[in-house]
């Protein structure tokens, strides 16, 4: 009985490890200070060029190879993350995110969203708190 209990305990521990404790994404997640440079344009409106900082968060994503990056009050992107810290995702030919974790504590990426009538670009750098 003790052996079965031990095996069950070990199995559940490994299962929980697989889901959380030793996931390769864990080294990148946490609270970050983001510095965001945003430019936006549209045919009907003014050109926007602004820089702001935001205290955001990087979290585990909805799939085993994704993370959420919350880098502004209204913007949270989900992107693929590769083992070397590369982040990239392409939503359409006009909308993509590409960047990298330079270390487990520092991230930079560019989010582009450009169409015929307007667009926006975010150049973002983040540092783990």
């Amino acid at each position: 009985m003790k052996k079965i209990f031990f095996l069950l305990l070990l199995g559940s521990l490994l299962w929980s490890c697989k889901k959380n404790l030793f996931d390769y994404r864990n080294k990148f997640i946490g609270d970050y200070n983001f510095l965001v440079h945003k430019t936006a344009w549209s045919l009907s409106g003014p050109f926007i060029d602004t820089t702001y900082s935001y205290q955001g968060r990087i979290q585990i994503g909805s799939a085993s190879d994704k993370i959420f990056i919350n880098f502004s009050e209204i913007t949270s992107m989900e992107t693929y993350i590769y083992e070397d810290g590369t982040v990239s995702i392409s939503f359409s030919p006009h909308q993509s995110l590409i960047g990298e974790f330079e270390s487990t504590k520092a991230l930079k990426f560019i989010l582009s969203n450009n169409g015929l009538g307007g667009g926006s670009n975010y150049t973002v750098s983040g540092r783990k708190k």
Partner: protein
Amino acid sequence: MIPLINYGQEAFQSNQSKNQFSIQVGGYYKTFLGGKYIEPKVYKNENDFRDHQYEGFDKFSTTGLSAGFLFSFRFHNRLGITTGLIYFLRKELFSKNQNDLINSGSASSMRDIRNVFKYDYSLNNIEFPIMVQHTLRRFTFYAGSYFAVLTYKIAKYDYIVYNYLNNPPWTTADKEINGFELLLKLFPTIQIGYEVKILNNKMYPYLAFYYAIKNKSDLYIQLGINSPLSIKKK
């Protein structure tokens, strides 16, 4: 006579005829079955890249080491089960000619994983062996598997990075990303030990072969020594 190895672990000796703790230390050379070039394959979409990232690369032989404790339980005069806890440093090295990457024009201006021309991994594994052992005179034969559970992975990446304003328009860069990861890999093994006496202590130099199931052609050839934690009765 005082034995050379006397760990004073009386508890281990409670049933010396059946149970045996030992220390095992070894060094390995990793080679490959088949060629070292990893053939590129066609993949369906961008998201499959993770499964194909070493294609087009050469893999290289490496060396490493292992050390840890084994516990053997003999349930028959000659037969037994061996398990334990082993630290295993397994290294992996993949590289391609950086000119292939430069000439392909596929690399970007960011340090993207598609720009990598060299992967250098040191996997500091915690592994559990489970082996059946059979003793025949002074030989002990083992067959089973090492189960690698957890690793502290030290990963070094060498990249091409494009800057189209420069001449030449590319430079190289490198990056290191380290951290704990769950491995869950099996390394089937066979091992042959031979009993010798060194300063009146039994030692078992051994030769072992490991095969990596996930990296299908990796073959580890290991030499080492197994030293029982035994106390001689005075």
